[in-house]
């Protein structure tokens, strides 16, 4: 655990920078949708909800499979990563088509034609706002939590991570019995 590699240092730096950007973003956020955000600061939209027993993090990851999503609790931050292979962009499209014939009027020839159209470069994007590339987000967790008791679920493109709070008494780490 004490292993130190150069990427850790980069991560530390990024985290420090991220905190500052988040403060910046936080102040801009309240002023309305027209206000520019810091580029890249909002790769994954998250809600963090706290109640007496738990801290719950909800993250929007539309279009990802549960297998594509990775969650890690590192120190006092939750790191959420969604990764896909490059080709998924088209696989998603074809997935849509593959479902089609069943619901369609069963026009198999038509479905074949549309698949051909996908494979060719003959596509024009009128809008392209959705994210296809990999995404990640580091969410600072305020206060100690039971990492071992954390649970995560993924449904309809939303990741829900539930982190039970740790009571302040066992904040000191493992208790070692003195005999």
């Amino acid at each position: 655990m004490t292993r130190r590699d150069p990427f850790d240092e980069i991560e530390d730096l990024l985290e420090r920078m991220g905190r500052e950007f988040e403060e910046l973003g936080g102040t801009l956020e309240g002023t309305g949708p027209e206000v520019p955000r810091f580029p890249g600061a909002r790769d994954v939209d998250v809600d963090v909800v706290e109640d007496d027993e738990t801290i719950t993090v909800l993250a929007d990851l539309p279009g990802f499979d549960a297998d594509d999503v990775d969650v890690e609790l590192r120190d006092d931050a939750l790191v959420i990563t969604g990764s896909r292979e490059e080709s998924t962009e088209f696989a998603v499209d074809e997935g849509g088509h593959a479902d089609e014939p069943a619901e369609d009027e069963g026009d198999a020839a038509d479905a074949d034609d549309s698949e051909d159209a996908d494979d060719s470069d003959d596509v024009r994007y009128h809008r392209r706002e959705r994210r296809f590339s990999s995404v990640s987000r580091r969410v600072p967790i305020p206060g100690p939590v039971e990492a071992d008791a954390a649970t995560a679920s993924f449904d309809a493109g939303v990741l829900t991570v539930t982190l039970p709070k740790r009571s302040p008494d066992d904040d000191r780490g493992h208790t070692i019995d003195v005999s």
Partner: protein
Amino acid sequence: MDATNPFDEIEQLLGRTPFAGERAWGRDLRTADIDVAEYDDEYVVMADLPGFDRDEIDVRALEDRLTIAAERAAEREDADRRYLRRERRHESVTRTVDLPATARLDDATATYRHGVLTVTVPLDAVDADEGHRIDVN
């Protein structure tokens, strides 16, 4: 196991990630992010609608306009349940897309999977000579 590439994070931080450009600057919480792709014989609209049920999504086509609306019950917030951060989109989002005149709306299909709505609208073939032929009598 560590899937995070630090260089990706640097790129994201600098806002150089592909497709991050326009969207990073300002965002309307009442709309959905969409892709609109036109193929030879169909129009495909994909909308990010994370966290909805199928029956909370309404897709309507009227006069060459496709309207996507989704609505879910509002999350409660009270003294026992506090939002420390709230960035996710609103409970109710709508988005309208103009479709070409050749769109066959009656044959449109929609699927919802992993929080992404995909609407496929077949297009009528345009005449090979790229124009409207007028019969000469």
